[in-house]
């Protein structure tokens, strides 16, 4: 897939929670095809001290409007600076990067936590487009951390697990009974411990599980070899051969 390095224009920057914000970005031409699970490398111009681009999943794509959405969690200097960008300003992206999720099976479960919920929106939409309504399970600490439930509900059967029980079931995603339904494939993105736990549950039930990794990256295009993950066939680049891997291909998973 051809990659681009181009300016988008910020159409909207909405704070969803004190730490999560969503950017709607306008592309000046026809967007190229983008697979769910692919990501962009964002150039952070304002706000000192940030040298490298930051990898961010493509949260959703509006093909008609030629817009992409990013869902970002503020964790450090780069995401902090990005959170202050205003509509009308431009944002330079290298995109679309990585391989993305393969659409596999008819009964599918998507499990997300933290900023890992981001690519699941686009993945849900892709399944809808081929006539499949996925199950989507989102885990977080409490109701305040929850956002975009309407959007997820529109595209999936939404299930929620909160640690304090303020919404959905009380507990971790791995405690959710939906896991016991029969699925063809499980897709997960979120904190590594969560993904490992879900991959384990999938393995127990003999269901293929795709995990989306968030390794630190420098180039995003397979040139620097900084982002490798240890697979059963040796080191692979997360940015080009991932970020999505079959859990059983990875060591330590």
């Amino acid at each position: 897939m051809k990659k681009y390095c181009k300016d988008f224009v910020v159409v909207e920057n909405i704070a969803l929670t004190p730490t999560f914000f969503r950017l709607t970005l306008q592309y000046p031409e026809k967007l190229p095809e983008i697979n769910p699970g692919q990501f962009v490398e964002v150039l952070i111009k304002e706000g000192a001290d940030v040298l490298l681009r930051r990898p961010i999943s493509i949260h959703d794509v509006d093909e008609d409007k030629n817009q992409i959405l990013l869902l970002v969690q503020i964790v450090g200097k780069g995401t902090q600076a990005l959170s202050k960008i205003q509509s009308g300003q431009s944002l330079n992206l290298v995109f679309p990067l990585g391989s993305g999720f393969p659409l596999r099976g008819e009964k599918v479960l998507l499990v997300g936590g933290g900023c890992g919920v981001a690519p699941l929106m686009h993945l849900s939409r892709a399944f809808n487009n081929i006539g499949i309504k996925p199950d989507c399970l989102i885990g977080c600490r409490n109701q305040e951390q929850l956002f975009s439930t309407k959007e997820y509900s529109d595209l999936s059967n939404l299930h929620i697990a909160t640690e304090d029980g303020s919404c959905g079931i009380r507990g971790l995603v791995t405690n959710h009974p939906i896991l016991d339904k029969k699925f063809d494939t499980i897709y997960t993105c979120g904190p590594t411990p969560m993904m490992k736990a879900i991959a384990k549950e999938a393995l127990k039930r003999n269901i293929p599980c795709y995990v989306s990794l968030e390794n630190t990256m420098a180039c995003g295009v397979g040139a620097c070899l900084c982002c490798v993950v240890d697979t059963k066939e040796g080191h692979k680049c997360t940015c080009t051969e991932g970020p999505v891997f079959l859990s059983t291909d990875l060591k330590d998973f």
Partner: protein
Amino acid sequence: MKTFDKRLEVKIKGINLKNPVMTASGTFGYGEEFSDFMDLSDLGGIIVKGTTGTHREGNPYPRMAETPSGMLNAVGLQNKGVDVFCETVYDRIKSYDTNIVVNVSGSTIEEYVEVAEKINALEKIPAIELNISCPNVKKGGMGFGTDCLMASQVVEAVRKVYHKTLIVKLSPNVTNIVEIAKSVEGAGADSLSLINTLLGMAIDAEKRKPLLSTITGGLSGPAVKPVALRCVWQVAKNTKLPIIGLGGIMNATDAIEFILAGATAIQIGTANFIDPAISSKIVAGLSEYLDRHNLKSFDDIRGII
């Protein structure tokens, strides 16, 4: 057909470069990774990934940490080995209209010699860059580049089997870079590229853990530019070899600083990660500088500091 600015042409011993702008080993893959973003034929040259005698897995993840105006890496020469390069990679890239230079690495003199000899047989590779300065491998690597005797031994041995342009890449992690440069010059190098990365380290104070699996790694990016310029200037003043300068070059102005310090050509490393088309933009920036300053070429101002 594209026309190139003739004023930018430079020579490095046996090879002609369209312009002084090359891309640095380990930061530009095999070039292919960047062909969506720019025309590779715009470049004076591409230095491909560090290549060793056999397949190497490199260091464990994590391998990268950002630091103020810089980054640390600890890739550790991950590559598929020289045979895979010759058999599969070479065929894919040999027709690029630019100079493809192979960065040759190793743990022993024998390994350097073996790789150099195999690359010598490849018609479309006009030069190698001998990497005696990699801080990210346990054995060899930087060791060769920090000792005059070892440096000259490995260069002499490679010189015997390698008959095209032999560039040697030096480490800044030394007390006296001029001494090393002179040893390498004496041993038969055709050109020097400097600098490789500075040995550095980063720590996560909250997690109380190093940020790299190997604890220490190689520092690159704008932070190292003052050190790189100083090394280029010192070596340019004290050897006769053409110098390829690199370390923190982010734009044409930075590139020109290296030329003023005495470099014949320059390389772009970390900057490729921030703007994947930067090297081609720097070529254009060099032409603009010549226009603005009414210069016929960089020959008039090279090394005038």
